[in-house]
């Protein structure tokens, strides 16, 4: 059979990029299919309306619909305090995927996160399983990602430190706002650990990429210097430079076709809607957890009537999201003078501090999973900041003179410090992806139907962490402290749906992230994750995709002589 490439990758974000990079470096030919357009630094602006308010990099619900059903988090189904950031759970759709618009707060998972079931036991209505690999299996790839993606930071020792194979980060940390030291002093006084946060942002020029320009407009925005370690800039562009990787943008995959228990080709619509094919030896799905599950279900055949690689019936199951909440406090300039006031007024955008003192906690005799508190300054997006003031209380909107006064207080007379919490999203049996029976996309294909049910333990952990956040802000002397509602399902951190495991009856992928059912199919986006730690798990997706790339190279016969 004539192949178009050794490997075809569907999706170009954090799951697809490392595979394309590693395979191309190893001498193999790769074709990457991405349904979004090819956008790069020249296409990005600090355009709050376009990039943040109208989310122009995310598909419009009307153009690319999904059916989303959110169930209330409490068991009797009456109350929901959960707010949604976006209504369709789409994230950025372009070459490099969501990594183009991530904030780039990077955390490793902890060794204990790989064996939560063994450590904490089973949870009612929570399908928690141990990973089939451990932290040490992934550590070399966390380390590789630091170098290749360009992760900047500073290693400090603390009770929750993860073991590292290198003493420190390959890039020094990005510059910090003086308030970071206020956080450090408070932590020291209180006996907590204030931890510097690693960023997927270059603090210095490297590898034809510019250094950070410190606009602070990272999350929601494309990076205009190339400092942010997106899959496109850090992985795909170097892969293309080898001459062995081709990226086909605006290519929407329709179906994966099988013959004799092997995948032979993927079928896709090009920009003009014409049907095209890619034949390859190996196929990698990395279209993000929801779309990867949808594509497997759409690829049902006589051999796999319930969906490709779905003999376990687990495709689309175990969907979860990083569960978060937050809070904020203010330092009024009028109460400070001299050096302290100068420090507060410093325009530096990054605070980069976190607390993991409550990663696990005990109540009574029982041990619970807590999480991470991330401290940060406002994303300097004035419209979003102003709306947070106007809409802080949905039952009493701010407008008129009161709005003007509050805006002035927030923008001119004080500095706001915020925190976000990250708790484990425990997969609930009622959270899943299926195909909708009636709604079709513009190509006539059934859309994803996503049902979200947030586990009550995730909400409880978030509430617990928010109170710790309040204590930290109080200890710092912040005023006007407010806690925001829990956000259970945002498009930023989606996982599950094709869980990996050793048992083919209860998992979709094996420990190498290869489908139990199909020898030449791998999945490398967040779908494989059984539990994502109490941290943002983008670094883990990157690291695992590097690990899986090595497995694919082995299966193809090792490094190729070029």
């Amino acid at each position, binding site marked *: 059979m004539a192949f178009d490439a050794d490997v075809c990758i569907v999706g170009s974000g954090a799951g697809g990029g490392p595979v394309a990079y590693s395979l191309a470096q190893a001498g193999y030919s790769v074709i990457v299919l991405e349904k979004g*357009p090819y*956008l790069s630094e020249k*296409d*990005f*602006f*600090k*355009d*709050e*309306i*376009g*990039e943040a*308010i*109208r989310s*122009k990099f995310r598909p*419009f619900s*009307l*153009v690319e619909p999904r059916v989303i059903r959110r169930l209330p988090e409490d068991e009797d189904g009456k109350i929901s305090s959960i707010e949604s950031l976006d209504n369709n759970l789409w994230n950025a759709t372009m070459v490099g995927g969501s990594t183009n618009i991530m904030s780039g707060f990077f955390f490793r998972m902890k060794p204990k996160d790989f064996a939560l079931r063994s450590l904490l036991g089973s949870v009612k209505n929570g399908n928690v399983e141990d990973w089939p690999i451990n932290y040490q299996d992934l550590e070399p790839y966390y380390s590789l990602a630091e170098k290749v993606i360009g992760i900047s930071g500073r290693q400090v020792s603390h009770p929750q430190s993860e073991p590292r194979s290198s003493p420190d980060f390959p890039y020094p940390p990005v510059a910090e706002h003086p308030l970071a030291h206020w956080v450090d002093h408070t932590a020291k006084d209180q006996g907590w650990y204030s931890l510097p946060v690693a960023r997927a942002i270059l603090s210095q020029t490297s590898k034809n990429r510019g250094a950070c*320009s410190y*606009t*602070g*407009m990272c999350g929601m925005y494309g990076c*205009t210097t190339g400092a942010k370690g997106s899959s496109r800039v850090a992985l795909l562009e170097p892969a293309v430079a080898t001459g062995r990787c081709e990226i086909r943008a605006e290519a929407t995959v329709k179906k994966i076709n099988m013959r004799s228990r092997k995948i032979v080709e993927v079928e896709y619509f090009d920009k003009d809607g014409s049907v095209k094919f890619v034949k390859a030896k190996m196929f990698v799905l990395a279209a993000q957890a929801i779309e990867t599950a949808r594509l497997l279900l759409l690829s049902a055949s006589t051999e796999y009537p319930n969906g490709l690689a779905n003999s376990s019936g687990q495709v689309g199951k175990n969907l979860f999201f990083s569960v978060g909440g937050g809070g904020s406090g203010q330092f009024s300039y009028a109460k400070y003078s001299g050096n302290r006031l100068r420090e507060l007024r410093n*325009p530096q955008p990054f605070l980069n501090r976190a607390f993991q003192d409550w990663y696990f906690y005990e109540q009574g005799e029982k041990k619970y999973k807590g999480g991470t508190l991330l401290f940060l300054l406002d994303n*300097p997006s*004035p*419209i979003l900041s*102003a*709306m947070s003031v*106007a*809409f802080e209380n*949905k039952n*009493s*909107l701010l*407008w*008129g*003179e009161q*709005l*003007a006064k509050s*805006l*002035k207080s927030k*923008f*001119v007379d004080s500095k706001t410090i915020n925190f976000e919490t990250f708790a484990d999203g425990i997969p609930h049996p009622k959270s899943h992806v299926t195909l909708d029976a009636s709604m079709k996309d513009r190509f006539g294909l059934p859309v994803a139907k996503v049902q979200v049910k947030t586990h009550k333990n995730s909400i409880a952990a978030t509430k617990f962490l928010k109170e710790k956040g309040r204590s930290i802000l109080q200890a710092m002397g912040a005023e006007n402290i407010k806690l925001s509602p829990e956000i259970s399902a945002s498009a930023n951190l989606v996982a599950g749906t094709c869980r990996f495991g050793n048992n083919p009856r209860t998992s979709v992928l094996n420990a190498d992230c290869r489908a139990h059912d199909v020898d030449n199919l791998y999945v490398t986006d967040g779908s494989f994750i059984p539990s994502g730690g109490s941290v943002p798990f983008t670094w883990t997706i990157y690291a695992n995709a590097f690990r899986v790339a090595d497995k694919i190279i082995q299966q193809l016969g090792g490094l190729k002589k070029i």
Partner: protein
Amino acid sequence: MFKGSSKIQENRDGKSLFFSDEEFNTLGAVQNCILPGGVSSPDAQAIGAMTYLERFFSYPDFKDQYFIFIQDGLNRLNKNALRKKNKNFYALDVEDRENLLLEFEKEGFNRDWLMFVIALTVEALLSDPIYGGNKNEMGWKWLEYSPKFPRPTKPYAGSMNGV
């Protein structure tokens, strides 16, 4: 994909391209309640809140999605004014206008509408002037905000057309 147009149309001679005179006046009066202006703060008219909105609706994607929602709310609000005060909303004194908006705020659907008009007014106050509001960067100057670079070179017009 929906086709958006990046062609900008202006409201000429104080006439709206999209709203009836009554709707246009009601909207202007609501915007002035949201941003009345004060000793140091700019008012809705000065920052170009109406120009911002007219440009927003000149893009078909946004007009298709939101115009009827805005228009219906304006008409409901004005009907309330006529029923309760026997005058058009824009002809009422400020206190009566505010009271009617406070009543609006208590009703779920009308609160959603008011939130959207507030959001669009805040956008007009603090967006890049390329979008038609924030005249002379008045909003940014008032709140001592320094724009970040590179600033947009053309407004986002819906779908991915603005890219």
